[in-house]
């Protein structure tokens, strides 16, 4: 196992032409890294660059607005992703179909659902964003749909796995006392996976926040937008202001999900 990993590493290093020397930054790069690192704990509280248009509001207001939009894009993407993931996850779970008559139709539907999920997942949200930018232009909907498709696919896949791994004894007992397949699934099996599904959804929401920020590089006005501007303007203080805002967002979401979990699971 370890030998195989080492061999794979060696092959890819050779194929990509990697060498340890490349770990040393170029001469100008050292300067840049030092300037960047120097501002880590002294982020800008007001605009520092001369290139910012004079009519721009205060930096902190602009960052807060970008942070809010980052959350809104992530929320929109996640809501749509959940709307996709619940039916897709059901259709691609063995427990859903095993409750019903298994026939050729069931096998086809299961296969189709799994293929759709694989398709959604295999394209990264940034690539979807490129596609939708070309198709719909720079509208918020492009960003939300770009987030929703791969996230929906991933959530669906994990939801299906969680459903299929949930203990079956209670569901079997419900079936034995006369419950219909839908009742067995909804009230005997799903409750056993629900806490895990919720926790996973929150984790994906965190990921969605980061993706939503990065979508700013394409021109959507999330944290990534200001971050890119600051970088081009060599305004590292401003850059760190945006980065810290993102860190705060992620920590806040983590806190919130932890509190919810303690309230509902414990």
């Amino acid at each position, binding site marked *: 196992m370890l030998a195989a990993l080492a061999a794979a590493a060696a092959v890819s290093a050779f194929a990509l032409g990697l060498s340890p020397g490349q770990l040393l930054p170029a001469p100008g790069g050292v300067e840049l890294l030092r300037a960047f690192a120097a501002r880590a704990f002294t982020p800008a509280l007001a605009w520092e660059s001369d290139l910012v248009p004079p009519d721009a509001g205060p930096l902190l207001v602009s960052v807060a607005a970008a942070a809010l939009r980052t959350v809104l894009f992530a929320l929109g993407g996640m809501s749509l992703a959940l709307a996709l993931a619940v039916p897709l996850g059901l259709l691609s779970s063995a427990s859903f179909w095993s409750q019903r008559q298994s026939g050729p139709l069931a096998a086809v539907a299961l296969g189709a659902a799994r293929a759709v999920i694989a398709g959604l997942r295999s394209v990264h949200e940034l690539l979807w964003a490129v596609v939708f930018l070309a198709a719909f232009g720079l509208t918020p909907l492009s960003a939300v749909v770009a987030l929703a498709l791969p996230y929906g696919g991933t959530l669906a896949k994990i939801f299906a796995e969680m459903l299929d791994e949930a203990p079956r004894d209670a569901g079997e007992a*419900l079936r034995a006392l006369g419950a219909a397949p839908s009742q067995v699934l909804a009230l005997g099996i799903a409750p056993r996976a629900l806490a895990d599904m919720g926790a996973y959804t929150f984790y994906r929401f965190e990921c969605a926040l980061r993706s939503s920020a990065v979508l700013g590089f394409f021109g959507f006005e999330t944290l990534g937008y200001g971050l890119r501007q600051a970088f081009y303007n060599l305004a590292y203080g401003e850059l760190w202001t945006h980065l810290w805002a993102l860190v705060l967002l992620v920590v806040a979401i983590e806190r919130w999900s932890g509190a919810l979990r303690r309230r509902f699971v414990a």
Partner: protein
Amino acid sequence: MHELTPGASAGVVLPRRGAVEPRGGAVARLDGVTVSLGGKVVLHGLDLIVRAGEAVALVGPSGAGKTTALRALGAALAPDRGRVWIEGQDVLALGSKERRRARSRVGFVHQQLALVPQLRVHQNVAAGRFGRVGLLSSLRATLFPSRRELIEMHTLTEQVGVAELLFRRTDTLSGGQQQRVAIARALYQEPVLLLADEPVASVDPERARAVVELLLALCRERGLALVVSLHDLDLAREHFDRLVGLRGGHLAFDAPAHNLADDHFARLYELERGDTIP
């Protein structure tokens, strides 16, 4: 049925599927039921009749097929051969809706209890009625139980001794308390027959006696038939009029307790060559 039946009767001529049950008075009945699980025959043409209001103990060594026989009685599995009757209906010939209804007439207290640990006690009890209603009604009863339903469930849980736990999360209960919740769920079905699989497997001897006595009392006052699988022979002989012995998927005996000598039990439990000890 009040004489010794040596082994299972083979070669019974069965009526056409969906026919009227041959003999009345039974709440549930197995007719030449053969079941195989994982490619192995677990029940060999088992015949068993459970009459209204009677209490039967199902005894036999591990792997004899007691759980499988109980599941067959509750129409919870599809036999390879044979017929399962519940309240005079040939269950396997019924459509899915009627079959659900037939199943809902048989309460089952599983060995592993099979409650949903994440739900509240009242939500697990409410599941007893799922055989009679659709998805939406069962969701409603789970999430928004009516006052009337709660009162009814409170009365039931009071009778099994866990009323004060009605709103607790089920996984915060002890094993013994969860067992009582499982009994309450089965009674909430308003069944004609209660099946209990090893209800004393995980409690100490004193509690074991109490659980068996509770089951007997609950069924007697409701006029329910009761079939309990038991490892403890003394408990079975002491409390039940009728004992059914299973061995290797065959009926070893089916007789009143006072007709059975120690010899019958010794033979039931002795290890055969080639028997595996689980």
